[in-house]
């Protein structure tokens, strides 16, 4: 009823090609952005910021990066955690070794370093694909684990391998309270999501998708696999590396290589698979599912038990959390193999036809 595009005529090419061609979508997104930038900082308490919103924003950014590589270019990666680690430690080294380097520059340089490392580890993708490539990227994971655990230079010779940063500021804006951290991450995510969305709509994105759908055919029509694949690795690693730097600097403030273990790589891959391969929206859904759901379950179950007068032990809660979480993953994958983003778009389709669906 409300969600209908009748009467919205496009008179220019620009209007036809905009990201959200339907007016209602545009208003919704604008509304969400307004809520995110203005309402949430005013309303939400510190716990939500620190425990849910900030990790959600940063991991969304990383998931977008992984989605570019896995969803758009079809190159499976199990090394996302490694690129996060490279981003975080590179940014850390720029931050402490170059006196007076602005925070933004450090973080972006961290992302760039990660992009370079990504290109190097993307080279095998020119020869191997599918599961074999996944194994090759796993090597990146173990390699970076080894580097940051064993080479003391990268961790500034800290005896325990744990590093920390403090006194973060951007042009006089102190990033020390949860609201400023949240806004800082939100600005990053907004800009990067817009970048990613546009990149996937232009020539380079179409090259990636051509490679994903059938690389031999893509080569025949004149797409260079070398360029397409390596650019996907570079862009993806840049996103993931930036997210890693944010994770270290903004979220943790003090971290060790274990923060970017192979578990993190799997988590990111699950996010894009559950959220929806090849969609930006899906990355956000996936991140929300993986970050928020376990925490919600963890707090909701004891309350639920309380309603029925049952006292669930701490161990019981965390076991139940894993069982329900795993069950939901299987459920979603069976019901909608294309991810939550697909549910979202099917929902939108239905709304358009409402009240007479066919």
């Amino acid at each position, binding site marked *: 009823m409300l969600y209908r595009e009748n009467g919205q005529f496009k008179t220019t090419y620009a209007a036809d090609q905009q990201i959200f061609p339907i007016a209602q979508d545009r208003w919704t997104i604008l509304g969400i952005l307004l809520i995110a930038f203005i309402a949430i900082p005013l309303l939400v308490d510190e*716990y939500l910021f620190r425990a849910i919103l900030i990790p959600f924003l940063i991991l969304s950014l990383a998931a977008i990066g992984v989605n570019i590589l896995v969803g758009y270019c079809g190159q499976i990666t199990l090394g996302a955690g490694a690129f996060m680690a490279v981003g975080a430690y590179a940014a850390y080294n720029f931050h402490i070794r170059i006196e007076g380097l602005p925070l933004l520059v450090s973080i972006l340089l961290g992302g760039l370093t990660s992009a370079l490392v990504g290109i190097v580890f993307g080279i095998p993708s020119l020869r191997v694909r599918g599961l074999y490539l996944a194994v090759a990227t796993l090597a990146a994971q173990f390699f970076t684990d080894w580097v940051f655990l064993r080479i003391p230079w990268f961790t500034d010779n800290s*005896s325990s*391998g744990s590093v920390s940063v403090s006194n973060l500021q951007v042009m006089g804006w102190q990033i020390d309270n949860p609201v400023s951290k949240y806004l800082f991450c939100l600005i990053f995510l907004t800009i990067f999501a817009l970048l990613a969305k546009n990149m996937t709509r232009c020539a380079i994105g179409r090259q990636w998708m051509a490679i994903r759908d059938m690389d031999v055919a893509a080569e025949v029509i004149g797409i260079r696999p070398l360029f397409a694949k390596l650019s996907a690795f570079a862009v993806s690693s840049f996103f993931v590396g930036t997210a890693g730097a944010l994770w270290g600097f903004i979220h*943790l403030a003090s971290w*060790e290589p274990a923060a970017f273990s192979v578990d993190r790589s799997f988590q990111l891959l699950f996010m894009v698979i559950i959220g929806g391969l090849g969609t930006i929206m899906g990355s956000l859904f996936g991140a929300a599912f993986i970050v928020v759901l376990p925490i919600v379950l963890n707090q909701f179950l004891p309350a639920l038990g309380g309603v029925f007068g049952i006292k669930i032990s*701490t*161990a019981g809660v965390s076991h139940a959390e894993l069982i329900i979480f795993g069950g939901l993953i299987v459920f979603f994958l069976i019901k909608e193999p294309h991810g939550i983003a697909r549910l979202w778009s099917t929902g939108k389709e239905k709304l358009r036809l409402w009240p007479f669906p066919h």
Partner: protein
Amino acid sequence: MNIRKLALSASLCTLALTSLAPTQASAAAKDQYFPVLVYRTGAYAANGAPWANGYIDYLKLVNARGGINGVKIIFEECETGYATDRGVECYERLKGKNGGATVFQPLSTGVTFALTEKAPVDKIPLITAGYGRSESQNGAVFTWNFPLLGTYWVGADVAIQYFAKKLGGVANLKGKKIALVYHDSPYGKEPIPVLEELGKKYGFDVQLLPVAHPGVEQKATWLQIRQHRPDYVLLWGWGVMNSTALREAQSTGYPRDKMMGIWWAGAEPDVKDVAEGAKGYSALALQHGAEPDAKVVKDILSMVYAKGQGTGSKEEVGQVLYMRGLLSSMLGVEGVRKAQERFGKGKVMTGEQVRWGLENLNLDQKTLDAMGFAGVMRPVQTSCLDHMGSSWVRIETWNGNKWEFSTPDWYQADEKFLRPMVMLASGKYAEEKKLKPRTPEECKL
């Protein structure tokens, strides 16, 4: 199921969720609130659970004895699974509840590192009894950290003293090889600077052999040990890594009496399954061992378990890790008691006041005896500059079915040697963070 039903059920679920969501009880600060970070699941559950039970049982005992000068304790568990991010989430969730957390004890060096950055902002003290960062002993820089009873540097120093004693003097350490088999995490890496420094001083060789989390895969490590034949092996493991190391030592034929564990590798779960195979293996003891005969344990059995309010099973009361949790809990409670002496008896203390209490803790033998800790631990006295309070360590040996103190004598870490290292490391931290160490005048406040 079609899409409509799915959407319907999803929205119903959300509705149910929001309506049932725990309504936060507003802060009625009549009770002292102790958040408890635990891990009863995951790879380290076997060691985390007894610690948590001891911690909570002691809080229950304090309540059964009438609270801290009449102030009752309330507590709440939060499961971290030994993961840093979940630990931080728990901290954020619990820190503001019920009028504010009294003290946090994360039982994980990784979580301690992360919380060290947050504690000064939230003004909540952090007790890390027998773990955490060693340089945080310097209270002038680490205002909110309390590595009470001992740090890993203390442990490393005492272990070398013990080896020297076995060899008949420090002079005989020259040319010896000592291997450190460690958990590859901030926890396992803590002792390395001290061992290397001591190696230079006494002329022995330190071999570093990291074991990846969770530590069930150690074949390669023990192959290296078989090749190099170190004179002693120092085991710095946690959880399943310890029993695996002992099994590997058994199958490699490395003599167990030349192996020495840190106090986190010296509890029942570490050796129970290896039983006879671990005979002769010794471990440092953070002052206490298994103490089933201590008065405080008997009190817990009679005042908590007899009423059916025990947290764990009756059999494990008094075991090594149970006692560690109990001691940790006691230190927190005594911090509150001390704070009440200054800020008002029978009142609820804030984190800031408890910090003062912990910094001026003075548990002499008489107090300990009165609390039922006779023979369990030695007196502890902290100060502004020394947040550790005691550097005494005992050594226990596994005889095949229980831990016993083979050498009744106590060891004390060499403060003259460790203090400069603590000052250097904490100074570096202060410089990095642009912190100004507290002056003696500020300490008095």
